[in-house]
């Protein structure tokens, strides 16, 4: 058994036009940079992408949008991307906006073998249109279904050769949830170590959920909103 791949191109060799693909990250934080670059190189198209955001014009999923590789985006917030807005308003791009917690929990549901979950998010709004509702203890909930994705592409901080993953800080976000949810899960990691080097107490995603893993390179880790305090001396 070998889960370790030489790089991103080999790890997504069997992604096909029309596939449903989950991509981890929140904004540009914790996105699978190497895997996105490989999808761009591969030129695969008509993809349905499930990702909290859609990148920015020239980074992240934005790179795929520019090349019109994406048929449909399923996201919670897409406000950082002009090309996205243009394609959406022109009808070139199909967009399904769903509440962020619903997005996260529908990923978790897939990874936990739960076909559907109940959430109050969106009750009484247009998100609820056409959806089944149900009352529990006087409160109304929407029935939302688990996602069904062909691939989950995630980015972790550290990983081992058995596929165990550890994420760093808020770059964790959707990554462990999507890692559990793909039919095939591919993880790119900043540091790849032999099985046994990670503390089993601190694993965020057990290797059973990860089919392919490789060491990513050249992480740009672009910051969207660089906010700082004045230098320490000024304090």
């Amino acid at each position, binding site marked *: 058994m070998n889960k370790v791949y030489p790089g991103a191109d080999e790890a997504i060799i069997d992604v096909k036009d029309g596939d449903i693909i989950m991509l981890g990250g929140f904004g540009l934080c914790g996105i699978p940079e190497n895997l996105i670059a490989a999808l761009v190189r591969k030129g695969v198209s008509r993809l349905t992408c499930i990702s909290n955001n859609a990148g920015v014009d020239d980074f992240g999923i934005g790179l795929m949008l520019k090349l019109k590789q994406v048929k449909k985006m399923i996201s919670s917030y897409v406000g950082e991307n002009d090309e996205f807005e243009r394609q959406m308003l022109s009808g070139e791009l199909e967009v399904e906006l769903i509440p962020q917690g619903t997005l*996260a929990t529908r990923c978790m549901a897939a990874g936990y073998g739960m076909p559907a979950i109940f959430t109050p998010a969106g009750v009484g709004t247009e998100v609820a249109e056409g959806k089944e509702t149900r009352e529990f203890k006087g409160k109304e909930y929407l029935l939302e279904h688990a996602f069904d994705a062909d691939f989950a592409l995630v980015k972790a901080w550290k990983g081992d050769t058995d596929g165990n993953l550890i994420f760093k800080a808020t770059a964790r976000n959707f990554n462990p949830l999507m890692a559990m949810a793909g039919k095939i899960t591919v993880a790119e990691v900043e540091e790849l170590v032999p099985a046994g080097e990670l503390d089993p107490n601190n694993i965020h995603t057990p290797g059973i959920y990860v089919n392919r893993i490789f060491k990513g390179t050249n992480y740009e880790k672009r910051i969207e909103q660089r906010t700082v305090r004045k230098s320490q001396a000024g304090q």
Partner: protein
Amino acid sequence: MSLTKEQIAQRIARELKDGYYVNLGIGIPTLVANYIQSDIAVFLQSENGLLGMGPFPFEGEEDPDLINAGKQTITTLPGSAFFDSAMSFGMIRAGKVDLTVLGAMEVSDLGDIANWKIPGKMVKGMGGAMDLVASAKNIIVAMMHTNPKGQSKLLPRCTLPLTGVRCVKKIITDLAVLDITENGFELIERAPGISVEEIKNKTAGRLVVRNEVPEMDLT
């Protein structure tokens, strides 16, 4: 005089109590963090997976892996914890977050809120707002009393697509503090120097005014 955004944030900070877990939305709500009284412990939740959010980092110490829900670089405080987005919204849905402060385009006198979409014009998405307003025990809206055209944002009924229904508890604007009651917006406090008359004129929804309405204390 109507409040500045900073002053709105300052007034909201007075709603925070010792031990509160608080989620602050983007915009004015984010500023609330700057005015938390030093004698209480408040834990800021960022829905992208952090409890115990600290101030912006010093220049040169930004970590791209450490951001808040507004995608701003931040820091953590002692006692912080990271988690995934499912747990983050899990604790929100379970009512563990004591207070949510968020901005709005419109609020109705029933407590409905609209803040995620202007049909045909702006569709950025709801992000975590729908989850927050559907679940938080206590929701305070921070916003300007009127839009740039001078039209009231406190309406009998929202005209924009809703974010949540009958969920807002309190509104703090540049002109007033108002509670949502069965009878509509109840005026609780006025901004210093702002007359009840002006607030009445700029509130399109039902407004309840009882006796004396004190001025806000921002000292």
